[in-house]
């Protein structure tokens, strides 16, 4: 069934490119949710059914929790935060959407190069997993840099986390539990805190536009003094 896994990974790759190109907040959130479901599915699909037999409870658990959190809980939380922060639906890019897509594509190809260089080995469940993971992480970070709103940065961060998750389920099925837990905890509390933060920021700054968030820094102090 590895082939299905690879189809899934290919779709995953696509979501990144689309994510880079999308201009609407809700759509972006939806895309991240989709990624979450895929992250949930991956462990099952990557499971070597033929000679490992049916996966144990742990794998199922991890898969389920992953899907539930990344695919359902977080998107809802994010939407809630977005509504609460009265963010309008535009993403307000610093880098244009077309250019973003090109860059995402570049990231993808670069990560395939890296994947090649990394002598991917039979211990890896899927040849594709690593490059896709790299791509997703790269896209996520890129989105954080390239979108203006605080909430979009959270979104980018989630994509980044998804990438790591893909990687984890790609290579570390045997002993990945702790790590998975780590991710969950991380993402959980993170979004929780981010939600509060965004709420606070919104209340204090009457906007979640992070351009308002660069008062601190040496240049600024310099000007104030001068």
């Amino acid at each position: 069934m590895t082939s299905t896994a690879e189809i899934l990974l290919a779709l995953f790759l696509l979501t990144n490119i689309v994510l880079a190109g999308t201009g609407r907040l809700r759509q972006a959130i939806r895309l991240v949710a989709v990624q979450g479901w895929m992250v949930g599915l991956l462990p099952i699909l990557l499971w070597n059914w033929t000679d490992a037999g049916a996966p144990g409870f742990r794998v199922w658990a991890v898969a389920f929790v992953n899907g539930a959190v990344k695919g359902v809980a977080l998107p809802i939380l994010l939407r809630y935060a977005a509504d609460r922060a009265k963010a309008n639906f535009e993403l307000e890019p610093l880098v244009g959407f077309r250019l973003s897509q090109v860059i995402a594509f570049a990231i993808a190809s670069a990560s395939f190069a890296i994947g090649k260089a990394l002598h991917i080995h039979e211990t890896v469940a899927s040849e594709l997993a690593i490059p896709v993971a790299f791509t997703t992480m790269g896209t996520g970070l890129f989105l954080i840099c390239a979108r203006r709103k605080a909430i979009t940065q959270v979104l980018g961060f989630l994509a980044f986390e998804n990438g790591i998750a893909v990687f984890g389920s790609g290579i570390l099925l045997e002993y990945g539990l702790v790590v998975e837990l780590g991710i969950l905890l991380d993402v959980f509390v993170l979004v929780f805190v981010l939600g509060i933060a965004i709420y606070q920021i919104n209340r204090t700054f009457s906007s979640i536009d992070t351009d308002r968030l660069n008062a601190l820094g040496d240049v600024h102090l310099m000007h104030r003094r001068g």
Partner: protein
Amino acid sequence: MIENLKWLLVWLTSALFVADLVQSVFYIREADRREGGDHMSHRTYYICLSAFFGAMVFALLSPSLPLMWVAVELTTLVSAPLIAYHRSRGALEAMWKYLLICSIGIGLALFGTMLVMHALELQEKGVAEGCRMWFKVGFVFILAGYGTKTGLAPFHTWLPDAHSEAPAPVSALLSGALLNCSFFAIARFREIMPAEIAGFCDAAMIVFGILSVAVAAVFMVRQTDFKRLLAYSSVEHMGLIVILFAIFMRTPADPGRGALISGGEIVGDAVLGLALLAHIVFHSLTKTMLFQTAGNLLLAFGTRAIASVQGLGVSMKGHAALWIVGILFICGMPPSVLFASELGLVVSAPFWMSALVLALLFIVFAAMMKVALAMTMGTPVAKPEPVPGKMMIVPFTLLAILVASGVLACICISIPGAWHN
């Protein structure tokens, strides 16, 4: 070595926690009285502070690498609210940046952890040529990830904001304990790296160390905010610590210079080992003392602008003494243990590196002394509202410890051949 480091850091963190807890009792009450405004409840503050401490100790003592990662992540999550103790715009912005940058760092660290663990697995399977690359890439992400938390340039960008906006005891704890913990994480990973990529790892660490010292030096010059100044000095010292560690790792134990023995086997060169440990400990103590003093000054003057804090020698003598001595100590002027450790670095590093580091440290010294003198000497421009004397208890205690141990250390190193033990 890692064992010594671990227990040392556990004790150090606990000590600092106690010191900052005591200082908090005075500080936040005083801060609320003066600044008022919207702030988090004291109960939450103390809970977060304790959780912060717990997370750090957990990170130090965690048996496995993933657990350590979880703990380090926890430290981020519980320290973030502390930074935003005052719900001021600045504080919130600082918290936001801290949260986002550190989370990204942590994510990278997680990724690195995965890579390294996979590499370890491959190593067990005996796949030599494959796992080397995995290790390398893994270490890259570890260095970037935990380096973000350690405050290595250019990942340090959250540090000045967080340190300058947080309440003084929190800044002290961040700078004195948290940075060390995440450095410890790097050290742990470095230790398990296979020998053939050790060169790459040490080179990378040295580059980042020197870069950190340089960046700190650049940003200290014409600095106008004394808490930011201290923050950058933390960046500088983290750089020094990383350099020391890297050189320590690549210097074989030389019986001529004496070797550091832990748990029966020789773990490395004595000079460097002791220098490293001493530098970590005394940077933390001195920096804690300085941040607490800075906090008092902030309360007294209501501003972090150096320009408006002048003539402490006239207006607040005790703090003037704390400030000038503390800054002399952090710059590694004898009798400061940091002098001994920097000397250790200079005598063991290759010449070009010692020269470069000394030059950068000279810039740092020039910048810091300019500020220190500007604040302590001269005539007051603003009338401070002095803080209660009990807020000087902890800093002065720390100062006493520093001076005593410094004198001791200087006597030790000045005895020829004292290194051999």
